[in-house]
């Protein structure tokens, strides 16, 4: 039985290309065949979760049924009533499987949970978001079939980008006019080819060629202050480059493929390395994730804190929420000290950044602002981010706590 990593090798792209031809032709002539879309979605899901990975496939089916039941059940309930505790209970139930999957390796010595599968986080984000918008009343006509298509949309199933139900539904229910669609094809093809450059050339070079060498050199140079050495610094930059090109490359494939299917899945990266501060960085890096956290954790928490008057000072509210928000993101990556430290680091960085921006606003005359300071800001931000990725990489864990 064949089994593929999504976008993993040329064969996958060849199959993808052939499978998309009828769909592209249909869209060019103003038709969208739901049936065909469903068939190729299932086909690619089988390619990803079938064969030797069938246990993941079973986990996916069970998980999806569970989430659909919850979301649909809540949507039906919400038409009649709107109780807070019920809503909280449903959200907790919805994130329960993800929580189990994330906590299992930490308590079971690195063993992976049986109910996990590739992409479970991203599906949870989509389900929870649908539930929250149902509660807000912004999402009124929930439909099971559309929701299934939204959840199982194969180009983005394994690692995002995280689309929103209402945005997806709008694209899915309509057919773009020919000119718009031709534009989408053009963009989609370009994205996929830039993705090739990112993922198969640059990420390969940084991740497969340079990184193992630096890792070995760094491990051999242990013994100094905190076991740090020049190779560790090299590792930090090379790992950051690898992380960016690998994930941005993958995202370009996912977005490009969506475009060919006439769905304008949102972009995940927008030149993150030119951010002048850490807040701007999170508006450019893994955008759909950070916006998800912004809309469904940060904003909600801020409202909750303000409503219940937990903190007198709105600044304190914002700062505490930053930290909580990033800590949750850290925990979401996995329950290890380095992911959590990574989250904490970014939380603190956001707090400091806010304080600095306020200070700068107050002392406009005394704080210089010119081309040099802007370059410096970009340089500083990029280096801070790279340092946070060194924490994230787990290399320090290997450096300090292994033989």
């Amino acid at each position, binding site marked *: 039985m*064949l089994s593929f990593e999504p976008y993993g090798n040329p064969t996958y792209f060849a199959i993808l290309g052939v499978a998309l031809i009828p769909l592209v032709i249909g869209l*060019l002539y103003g038709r969208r065949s739901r049936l065909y879309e469903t068939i190729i979605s299932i086909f690619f899901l089988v390619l990803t979760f079938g064969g030797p990975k069938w246990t993941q496939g079973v986990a996916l089916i069970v998980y999806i049924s569970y989430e659909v039941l919850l979301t649909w059940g809540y949507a039906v309930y919400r038409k009649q009533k709107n109780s807070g505790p019920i809503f909280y209970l449903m959200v907790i139930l919805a994130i329960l499987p993800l929580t189990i999957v994330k906590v299992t390796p930490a308590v079971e010595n690195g063993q992976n949970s049986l109910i996990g599968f590739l992409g479970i986080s991203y599906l949870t984000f989509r389900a929870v978001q649908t539930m929250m918008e149902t509660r807000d009343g912004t999402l009124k006509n929930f439909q099971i079939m559309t929701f299934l298509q939204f959840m199982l949309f194969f180009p983005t199933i394994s690692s995002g980008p995280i689309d929103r139900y209402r945005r997806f539904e709008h694209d899915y229910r309509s057919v773009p006019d*020919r000119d718009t669609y*031709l534009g989408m*094809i*053009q963009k989609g093809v370009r994205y996929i*080819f830039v993705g090739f450059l990112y993922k198969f050339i640059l990420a390969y070079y940084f991740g497969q060629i340079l990184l193992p060498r630096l890792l070995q050199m760094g491990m*051999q140079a242990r013994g100094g202050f905190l076991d740090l050495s020049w190779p560790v610094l090299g590792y930090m930059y090379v790992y950051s480059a690898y992380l960016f090109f690998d994930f941005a490359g993958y995202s370009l494939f996912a977005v490009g493929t969506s475009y060919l299917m006439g769905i304008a899945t949102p972009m995940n990266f927008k030149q993150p390395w030119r951010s002048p501060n850490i807040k701007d960085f999170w508006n450019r890096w893994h955008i759909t994730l950070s916006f998800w956290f912004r809309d469904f954790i940060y904003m909600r928490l801020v409202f909750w804190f303000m409503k219940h008057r937990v903190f007198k000072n709105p600044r304190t509210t914002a700062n505490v929420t930053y930290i909580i928000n990033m800590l949750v993101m850290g925990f979401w990556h996995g329950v290890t000290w380095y992911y959590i430290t990574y989250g904490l680091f970014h939380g603190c960085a956001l707090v400091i950044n806010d304080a600095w921006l306020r200070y700068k606003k107050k002392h406009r005359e005394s704080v210089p602002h010119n081309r040099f300071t802007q370059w410096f800001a970009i340089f500083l931000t990029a280096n801070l981010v790279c340092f946070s990725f060194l924490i994230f990489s787990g290399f320090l864990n290997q450096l300090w706590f292994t*033989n």
Partner: protein
Amino acid sequence: MAKRLLRIFGPIILAALLVLAVFVSPVTFGFKHVSAGEERQAAVSLSPNVLKGKRLKAAALGENYVPFFGSSEWSRFDPMHPSVLAQKYDRSYRPFLLGARGTQSLTQFFVMQNIQGDLRHKKAVFVISPQWFVKNGTRKDAFGFYYSQLQTTEWLSHYRHDAIDRYAAKRLLQMPVAQSDHFIYAALQRVASGKSLTDYQKVYLRAKMNMLTQEDQFFSGINLPSQNLNKVMQQTKKLPTHYSYATLNRLAGQLGKAQTGNNRFHISDTFYKQRLKKVIRKGKLKNFQKNLSYTQSPEFADFQLVLDQFARLDTNVMFIIPPVNDRWSAYTGLSKSMLRQFDRKIRYQLESQGFTHICDLSHDGNVPYFMTDTIHLGWRGWLAVDQQLNPFLTKSQPAPHYNINDKFYSQQWQQLPPERLAAYKVTSK
């Protein structure tokens, strides 16, 4: 619309056609030529790409290079290393080092598949590491690292329909990496079950082989590591102008002594510092090899594949059996009697089938500065190898007479307890 679609997809289609044309075409685009400099680099590079490819090996072996099959010992470039001695004293042969950490018999069997022409009626050298013959044989990930689809497709284009090839196919199917190409995987299943390949499979394999050959010709010369050649050249400077065993032996002792000062095992300082010092301080290595055995292993059957291949090609081979550093094995508790049993078992497999050129150094683990670290030959060890290797390669040898016996593929042989060897010699056929 058509115009716009052509603008979008035209370049892709054109690019795809060009790539296809290059890979499918039998023309070699002038990349076939390999310069002498490239050959010298490739011969000592120990790069996995050289091992997995064909172009560089075939070009060098077509001249005065001799294949030296082995594993991690090749990377110990001291002045007595075979490549250094051959270079310095301008011998009539030059070693082409094949193998690195993790390459074992099964990998070497496939390496031999696309240099058959250069092995037939020629000489070769093969280092047998006792450490290969552990309970589970070759590691699946290590085999995967050195696996070459090019070699597999070449093998499938000339395999014979006998028990040996069925065994090779079965072993390959046990490796996860065999699934890297679904069509090759299906073909291997047919070979393993004794069926011949379908016409469709033959066409596919031929096309694939052609494509991989083109790929090898384009890319094998790129990024060829040069640091090992530099090391070899550096080391030649330490040798006296004229070869004299006595002088070299003295020099080997001096060099060994100078480079093994920081530990009681006579292990090279850098190796000790990088790999052992920290762990030894924690006491984790004391007696850790007490129950290790090299006498029962699937590796014995994999090794038989190699012997079979040499016999089929009438290759005259010198086998080298290195010892284990005595001071080290005493510390780790590795049993000396077990090593002797291994030696007897492997020698029986070799000698009973007519492989009589054996440079057996298994008793020399106590000679000072024979080993550069725990299990790898160094200074005096390399020199001892040279004592037998040089005459073997430079003088003409009588043609070998091999009589291969399939019993060495059997489970019984692989798992034969060493104390039953004497009885086995008498009773088995």
